[in-house]
């Protein structure tokens, strides 16, 4: 059963299996640990999907696309724009389940069309040119989103409300006290589990894609597109299919993200910083592993969310020493992230998952 769910692509390393289990249980129980943890947990769930779908492109197909966060943003805008109060715009239907589903469908269709468009024009060219084309398309869309204040709310973005069941104002049970934390059973709690389940299903779906006959063709194309064509695979079609699948999954992740935040703005989903983050997450976790997405996203986001807190504590201990205290100032957290990244890439060129699997096989 577990085998079937994981598409027979098991972690293949006891250490990795243990880490994945801890992350899974952690994400399952996160809402019990308070609001900040819940926010971080939902972001981790969503980014795991975003990174896994990016790995489908980068690790499995050998396509470097900088437009991935654009699709993430399209998903978020799709749900957000349609859910604002009606009357403001003709497309606004107000909060509701229908709006959410319609928003998701419109966003997915739009993403599919854009992904097909990019593929048709650029998948024949070399990797580097494709990367540059996606970079420019995504920069154009991001600017468009930022400048079209009337439609997208510009840089301020869009705040919207969700159906009552998912709203933090709705409570379905009395709050309880758990380990000194007050746990409130609100709509946000339900929303978290919606995100969790959608992320889990999409994760297993991506895992299935890469272990399907189709997925193996993608890997063959990544390894040697010349030979893949020579044995009869139409390389361009497979690449286009892969980039459309990646785009759709990123779009769905975007929908979930906007629903969870009840907000969408260009910086939340489309910023270039996020694109860099998911690139780091894939590399740190391990390309072409899918499980790498879990490790990479969790590690990076925990560091982003908690490294500053940790540094605050450490800094207060060394506040007397001038240079060291400056280095450990919470504002310097990006410096430490960078160092962490260099260490990981240098020591684990195949990412953490790759390293763990090699160690399990006895290869150093």
């Amino acid at each position, binding site marked *: 059963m577990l085998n079937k769910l994981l598409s027979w692509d098991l972690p293949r390393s006891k250490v990795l299996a243990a880490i994945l289990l801890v992350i899974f249980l952690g994400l399952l129980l996160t809402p019990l640990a308070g609001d900040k943890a819940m926010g971080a947990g939902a972001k981790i769930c969503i980014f795991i999907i975003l990174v896994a779908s990016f790995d489908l492109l980068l690790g499995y197909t050998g396509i470097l696309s900088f437009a991935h966060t654009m699709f993430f943003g399209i998903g978020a805008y799709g749900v957000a724009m349609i859910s604002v109060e009606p009357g403001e715009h003709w497309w606004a239907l107000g909060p509701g389940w229908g709006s959410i589903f319609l928003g998701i469908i419109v966003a997915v269709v739009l993403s599919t069309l854009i992904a097909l468009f990019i593929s048709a024009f650029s998948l024949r060219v070399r990797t580097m040119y494709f990367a540059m084309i996606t970079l420019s398309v995504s920069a154009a869309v991001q600017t468009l989103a930022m400048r079209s204040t009337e439609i997208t709310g510009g840089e301020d973005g869009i705040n919207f409300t969700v159906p009552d069941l998912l709203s933090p104002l709705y409570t379905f049970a009395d709050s309880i006290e758990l380990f000194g934390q007050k746990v409130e059973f609100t709509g946000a709690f339900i929303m978290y589990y919606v995100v969790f389940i959608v992320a889990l299903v999409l994760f297993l779906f991506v895992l*299935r894609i890469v272990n399907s006959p189709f997925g193996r063709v993608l890997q*063959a194309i990544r*390894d040697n597109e010349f030979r893949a*064509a*020579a044995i*009869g695979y139409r390389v361009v079609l*497979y690449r286009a*299919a892969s980039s459309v699948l990646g785009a759709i999954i990123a779009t769905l992740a975007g929908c979930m993200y906007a629903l969870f935040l009840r907000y969408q703005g260009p910086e939340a989903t489309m910023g270039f910083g996020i694109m860099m983050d998911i690139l780091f997450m894939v590399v740190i976790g391990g390309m072409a592993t899918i499980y790498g997405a879990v490790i990479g996203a969790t590690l990076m986001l925990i560091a982003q969310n908690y490294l500053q807190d940790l540094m605050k504590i450490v800094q207060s201990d060394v506040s007397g020493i001038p240079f060291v205290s400056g280095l450990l100032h919470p504002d310097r957290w990006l410096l430490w992230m960078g160092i962490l990244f260099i260490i990981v890439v240098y020591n684990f060129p195949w990412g953490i998952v790759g390293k763990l699997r090699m160690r399990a096989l006895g290869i150093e």
Partner: protein
Amino acid sequence: MKQSTASKHPVLETRGLTVRFGGHVAVNSVSCAFSSGSLTAIVGPNGAGKTTYFNLISGQIPATSGEVFLHGENISGLSVAMRSRRGLGRAFQLTNLFPFLTVQENVRIAVQARAGIGADIIGMWNKHVELIDKANMILEQVALTSQAYTQARALPHGDQRKLEVGLMLALEPEVFMFDEPTAGMSVDEVPVILDLIKKIKDQGNRTLLLVEHKMDVVRELADRIIVLHNGCLVADGDPETVIASDIVQEAYLGAAPDKSKEAKK
């Protein structure tokens, strides 16, 4: 010896096939037909255009002029992938594998290409037992069973050459194009490949093209030899006659220095 098949069209035919790279004519108006059940060896000095001729037939390089016909149908406009699907199989001179897939996966991806299930994104790759069986059978034929789970990039050169041939076998093509299949192989590995080629030939309904430098191999296997020299077809006939002819003695078997490197993929 002209074509002697009963069917209306030869299996494979090139008419005036030419390709120019700048001012250099790599293949110069080569017209030739290949019939079923025969093995034609293509010989000639390095740089004669043998591999380029293969590239034109299988579509890796577009022809400047001339056409390729498969069963009388003009396939000159088709892509590499579509020609492969029509039954043109090719094993490359320089090993051309999927380095990060295992040996078995390499063959399976080709078996799958033949089976046409590449677009299945929900099914399990591991559950197509018949494809796995077929891949294992091919691994046995090319004597790679013991290496089935090694990554292709980790194979020694001779084994990579065998896998190269295995990939073509997996496609079950109608036309087999071998480009120096035994180059760089150790002496004891060569018979594996030669036996395989013989077996395919003995099926009687396949068309084999073989680029080969070793004259003893050519003598042993070929029904017919064509000679390319500076991109031109200069001799065509049964092995004994062609090998004995002046032009071959002079152009190929003579002590001509192997200087030219161009037109080698």
